[in-house]
C-alpha cells in the first residue's frame, strides 16, 4: 500500500505537489480572509467587553448633570443593593475608523483620580506606559491598541456627541493594556454636554443579576436612562455582528467553492490519465472496494498534507499581516481555532467528490477502462457524435477537450459571479449618492433663515426648502447611510423627477431601494406609503410631505462645480452641514476600503487559481494527445499544420467555453440576485473588469496549450513523440 503510493509519488511528483499546493493555497486563503473579517468582530467585541466589568447607567444631557435624574437613580441604587456600589461618571465617546469599514466607538470615563486603581482592577487592565491624568485637564489614558491604531495622532478621533474630529481635543498621557478597549480621564471630560451617569460595580458573579434587577426597577420608574452591562452588551454584539458573520460565511463559502471546483477538476483529469492503471490493477484481482480505499487513502494523505501546509502558511501570513495591517488599524486578530477547523471543508469535500468520481469510473467494465475509451453516459451520451456544427464537432469529441471545455465554463462562471457580486457591494455605496450628483443639501444648525448669495442662486436651476432623513441600510458586510430629502408637495415639482403631482406622505423610491425597504434592510424611515419612481436610479428616494419644518435648502444645479462653491459658502458662514457628491466620495473612500480589500483578495486569488488549473488542464490535455500528434506527423501532416490545428481547436474550445460560461453566469447571477439578494444593486450588467479577466484567462490558457503542443512537435522524430 505505502509502497504503491511511494512509487506513484516517485513517478508523478509534479501532480501530487500541484494538488497539495492548491489545497494549501485554499486553506491558507480562507484562513486569512476569515481572520480579517473576524478581527473586526473581535475588535468590536473587545470594545463591548468593557460592559462585562461594570454596569453603566447613563443619560444624555446638554447642560451638565441632571439633579433630579441623579437623585432618583441614587434612590434606586440605595433601595435595592447592598451588594453593589456606585460611582458617578461622565462619559465621552471617542470613535475611530476600523480600517474604513465602520466606526468603532469606545467610552472614556471621566472619574476622580482616586478611582483609577478601582477601575483598573475591575477591568483587568493596567497602565502600560505613561503617567496618570491630572484633574481638571483634558488628559486621558486610553487602551494601547487604540493608540497603536491611530499612531497617537488624535486627528482621527471623533468625539461622538459633536460628530467631528478636532485637533487637540484630548492629550493622551498613558496607555492601558488589558482585554478591553476603553479610556479614563478626569471628571468633567464631556465638558457639560454629553453622557452622564453612574458605574455600578458588583461582587464577582453578581453583575448579571444586578443588571437585570436594575433594568426592571429603572424601567418601572420611567427614567430616561440607558443601562449597559454584560447582558445588553451580548445582545448588542449579536445584533451588530450578524451581518459580519454572514459576510465571513459567504466569503469563505465562495473561496472554498473556487478551490473545491479547481481541485475536483485536477482530480478528474488525473483519473482520466490513470484509468488504465486502475483497469490493470482491477484486472489482476484488486476489488473495486480495495481500489477505492487505496485511492481514498491517497487523496486523504494529499488532502491532509495540503491542509497542514495551508494552516502553517496561513499562520505565517497572518503573523506577517499582524504588524503590517492589523495593529496599525487597531484590529485584534481573533482566535483562529474555529476558522482553522472550518478550512477542513475544502479538503474534505474534495475527497468526497473524488470518491464519487472514482466510483463512477470503477463501476465501468474493465475492457472499457483498459481501452481508455470515453464513458458515454447520461447527458454526454453520444452528445457530440453528430453535433450539427462541424467546426465544434472535432474538439468536443476528443476526450480531453471536454474536460477543458467544462473547466473553462466553470471558471468563466466563477469569474463572472464573483465580479458581479463584489462589484455590486461597492456599487451600492458608490451609487447611493446618485441623487446628489445634481444637488447639494445645506442645513443650518440654528433656526435662522439661510440666504444664498446671488452668485450661487443665479447658477442653480432651483432652490427649495427641504429636510433630510438619514437612514441606515444594511449591506452584505456592514451598513451604510442613506440620505433621503424631504420636500413639500408645493415645491416637489421643482425636482423635475415627477410626471404627476406627488401625493403627500409618500416615499418615492428607486426600484432597488424599494426592494431593500421591503426586505427590511433599511432602518429609520417614516412614511405612510411608498411608490417606485422609474426616474430614480440606484438607491435614491424622496419623501414628499404636505408641509415641512424645513431648516435646510436643497440646491439643484446642472454645473457640477457649483457643489464646491456651495461648500465654500457653507464653511464661511460656519456651523452648516452640507450633503453633496463629495459627501459620498468621502464615504466611499471610508466605507469601501474594507470591501475593496476583501474583493480584490478574492478576485485575484481565484483568478490566480483558475489560471493555474486552466494551465495544468490544458497542458495535460495536450500531452494526452501526443499520440495523435505523432500519428498525424507520421501520415505526413507538417508540424506547422498540426500546430495550427491545435491552436484552432484550443481557441474554439476556450472561446466557446468562456462565452457560454459568461452568459450562463450572467443569467444565473440575475436569478440569484432577484431571489436571494433583493435590492442588491449593480450599476451595469457587463462589468468590464470581468470580461477583461475572462479574456486574460483564456489567452493564458491558450498560450499554455499551444506551447505544450509546440514542445511535443519539436521532438526529433514522430516515433519518439509517442514513446515519451
Amino acid at each position, binding site marked *: 500500500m505505502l509502497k504503491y503510493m511511494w512509487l506513484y509519488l516517485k513517478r508523478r511528483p509534479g501532480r501530487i505537489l500541484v494538488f497539495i499546493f492548491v489545497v494549501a493555497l485554499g486553506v491558507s486563503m480562507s484562513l486569512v480572509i476569515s481572520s480579517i473579517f473576524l478581527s473586526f468582530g473581535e475588535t468590536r467585541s473587545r470594545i463591548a467587553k468593557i460592559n462585562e466589568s461594570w454596569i453603566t447607567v447613563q443619560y444624555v444631557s446638554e447642560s451638565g448633570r441632571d439633579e433630579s435624574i441623579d437623585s432618583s437613580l441614587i434612590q434606586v441604587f440605595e433601595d435595592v443593593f447592598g451588594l453593589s456600589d456606585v460611582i458617578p461618571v461622565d462619559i465621552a465617546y471617542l470613535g475611530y475608523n476600523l480600517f474604513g469599514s465602520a466606526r468603532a466607538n469606545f467610552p472614556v470615563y471621566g472619574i476622580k483620580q482616586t478611582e483609577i486603581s478601582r477601575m483598573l482592577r475591575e477591568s483587568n487592565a493596567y497602565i502600560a506606559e505613561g503617567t496618570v491624568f491630572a484633574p481638571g485637564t483634558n488628559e486621558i489614558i486610553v487602551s494601547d491598541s487604540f493608540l497603536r491604531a491611530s499612531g497617537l495622532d488624535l486627528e482621527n478621533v471623533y468625539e461622538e456627541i459633536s460628530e467631528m474630529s478636532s485637533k487637540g481635543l484630548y492629550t493622551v498621557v498613558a496607555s492601558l493594556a488589558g482585554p478591553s478597549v476603553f479610556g479614563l480621564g478626569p471628571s468633567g471630560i464631556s465638558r457639560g454636554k454629553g453622557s452622564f451617569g453612574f458605574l455600578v460595580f458588583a461582587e464577582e458573579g453578581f453583575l448579571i443579576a444586578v443588571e437585570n434587577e436594575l433594568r426592571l426597577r429603572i424601567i418601572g420608574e420611567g427614567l430616561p436612562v440607558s443601562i449597559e452591562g454584560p447582558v445588553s452588551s451580548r445582545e448588542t454584539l449579536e445584533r451588530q455582528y450578524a451581518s459580519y458573520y454572514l459576510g465571513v460565511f459567504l466569503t469563505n463559502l465562495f473561496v472554498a467553492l473556487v478551490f473545491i471546483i479547481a481541485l475536483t477538476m485536477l482530480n478528474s483529469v488525473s483519473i482520466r490519465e490513470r484509468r488504465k492503471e486502475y483497469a490493470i490493477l482491477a484486472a489482476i484481482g484488486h476489488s473495486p472496494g480495495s481500489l477505492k480505499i487505496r485511492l481514498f487513502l491517497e487523496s486523504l494523505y494529499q488532502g491532509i498534507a495540503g491542509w497542514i501546509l495551508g494552516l502553517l502558511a496561513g499562520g505565517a501570513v497572518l503573523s506577517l499581516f499582524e504588524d503590517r495591517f492589523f495593529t496599525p488599524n487597531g484590529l485584534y486578530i481573533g482566535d483562529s481555532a474555529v476558522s482553522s477547523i472550518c478550512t477542513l471543508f475544502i479538503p474534505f469535500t474534495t475527497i468526497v467528490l473524488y470518491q464519487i468520481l472514482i466510483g463512477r469510473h470503477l463501476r465501468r467494465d474493465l475492457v472499457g477502462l483498459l481501452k481508455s475509451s470515453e464513458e458515454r453516459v447520461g447527458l454526454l451520451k453520444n452528445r457530440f457524435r453528430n453535433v450539427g456544427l462541424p467546426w465544434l464537432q*472535432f474538439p468536443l469529441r476528443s476526450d480531453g477537450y471536454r474536460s477543458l471545455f467544462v473547466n473553462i465554463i466553470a471558471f468563466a462562471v466563477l469569474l463572472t459571479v464573483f465580479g458581479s457580486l463584489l462589484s455590486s457591494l461597492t456599487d451600492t455605496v458608490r451609487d447611493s449618492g446618485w441623487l446628489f450628483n445634481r444637488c447639494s443639501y445645506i442645513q443650518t444648525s440654528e433656526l435662522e433663515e439661510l440666504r444664498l448669495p446671488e452668485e450661487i442662486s443665479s447658477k442653480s436651476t432651483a432652490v427649495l426648502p427641504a429636510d433630510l432623513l438619514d437612514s441606515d441600510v444594511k449591506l452584505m458586510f456592514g451598513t451604510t447611510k442613506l440620505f433621503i430629502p424631504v420636500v413639500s408637495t408645493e415645491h416637489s415639482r421643482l425636482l423635475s423627477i415627477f410626471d404627476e403631482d406627488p401625493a403627500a406622505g409618500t416615499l418615492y423610491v428607486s426600484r432597488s431601494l424599494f426592494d431593500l425597504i421591503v426586505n427590511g434592510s433599511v432602518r429609520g424611515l417614516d412614511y405612510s406609503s411608498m411608490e417606485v419612481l422609474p426616474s430614480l436610479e440606484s438607491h435614491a428616494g424622496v419623501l414628499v410631505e404636505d408641509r415641512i419644518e424645513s431648516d435646510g435648502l436643497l440646491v439643484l444645479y446642472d454645473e457640477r462645480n457649483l457643489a464646491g462653491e456651495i461648500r465654500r459658502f457653507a464653511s464661511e458662514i460656519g456651523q452648516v452641514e452640507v450633503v453633496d457628491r463629495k459627501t459620498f466620495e468621502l464615504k466611499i473612500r471610508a466605507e469601501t476600503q474594507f470591501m475593496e480589500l476583501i474583493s480584490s483578495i478574492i478576485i485575484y486569488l481565484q483568478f490566480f487559481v483558475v489560471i493555474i488549473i486552466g494551465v495544468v488542464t490544458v497542458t495535460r490535455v495536450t500531452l494526452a494527445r501526443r499520440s495523435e500528434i505523432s500519428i498525424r506527423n507520421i501520415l505526413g*501532416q507538417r508540424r506547422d499544420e498540426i500546430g495550427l490545428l491545435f491552436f484552432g481547436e484550443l481557441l474554439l474550445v476556450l472561446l466557446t467555453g468562456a462565452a457560454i460560461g459568461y452568459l450562463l453566469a450572467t443569467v444565473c447571477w440575475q436569478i440569484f440576485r432577484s431571489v436571494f439578494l433583493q435590492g442588491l444593486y449593480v450599476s451595469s450588467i457587463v462589468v468590464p473588469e470581468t470580461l477583461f479577466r475572462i479574456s486574460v484567462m483564456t489567452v493564458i490558457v491558450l498560450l499554455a496549450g499551444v506551447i505544450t503542443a509546440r514542445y511535443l512537435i519539436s521532438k526529433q522524430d514522430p516515433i519518439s513523440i509517442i514513446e515519451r
Partner: protein
Amino acid sequence: MFELKEVALIYETKKQALAALKSTDLKIEKGEEVGIFGPSGSGKSSLLFIMSTLKEPSRGEVKYEGKELTALTPSAKAELRRKEFGFVFQEHFLINHLTVRENILLPLKEKRGARKRLEEITTALGLNKLLKRFPYELSLGQSQRVAVARALIANPKVVFADEPTASLDDENGSRVIELLKSYCSKSGATLILVSHSSEIIGDFRRRLRVENGQVYEVGVNA
C-alpha cells in the same frame, strides 16, 4: 529506390547503449516486394522506421530515389511521407476521437473526389459498415484493416507494413496481404512488409531475415 549504407541505430538508455540495428547495407528497387522477418526484438521495426524517415539513424546514410533522407527538413520529410509513403503499424495507431471514415481520409490533403477511392478500398477490406464507428468500438482485427485502408488511400509509392496481420485470423490475414500485394503490383509500388513469421512472407519475391540487428538476404523466390 532505397539505398542504405552502413546504417546503424543505437538506443542510448541511461545505463547502456543498445544497438537495435548494426551496420547495415541494403538496396531495394522500385516495385520490389520485400518481406522482412526475424525474432522479436531483432530490429525489424527499427529498420522500417529508418527507411520511412520516422527515425534518424545514428550512423550511416539512407537514400531514397537518390535523395539523402537524413538531410531533409522535418517538413520535407512529412511532405514525402504524405505524398509517397503509406503506413500500417504493429500498433494500429488510429486516432480515438475520429470516426473510421475520418481516420482513413487523414492522409489526404484534398478530401474532395476521394469518395470513389474510399468506397473501393473499404469494400475490398470489408469496412463498409464500420465507417461511422470510433476506433474503440472496433475489434483489433477491424482496426488493423482500417489502418491498411488508411495506408492505401493516397496511392502511395511505397507501402510500409509492420505486422499488418498480427491480430487477424488466417483468412483475413491472407486477404490483407493479398490486397497489399495486388495494390503494389497493379500500381508498381514498392511493398516492404515485416512479419515475425517466415510463413506469411513465404511467397514474397525477396525476403530478408533480421537477427540481432543484422540483416541477411534469404534469397529470392523465383
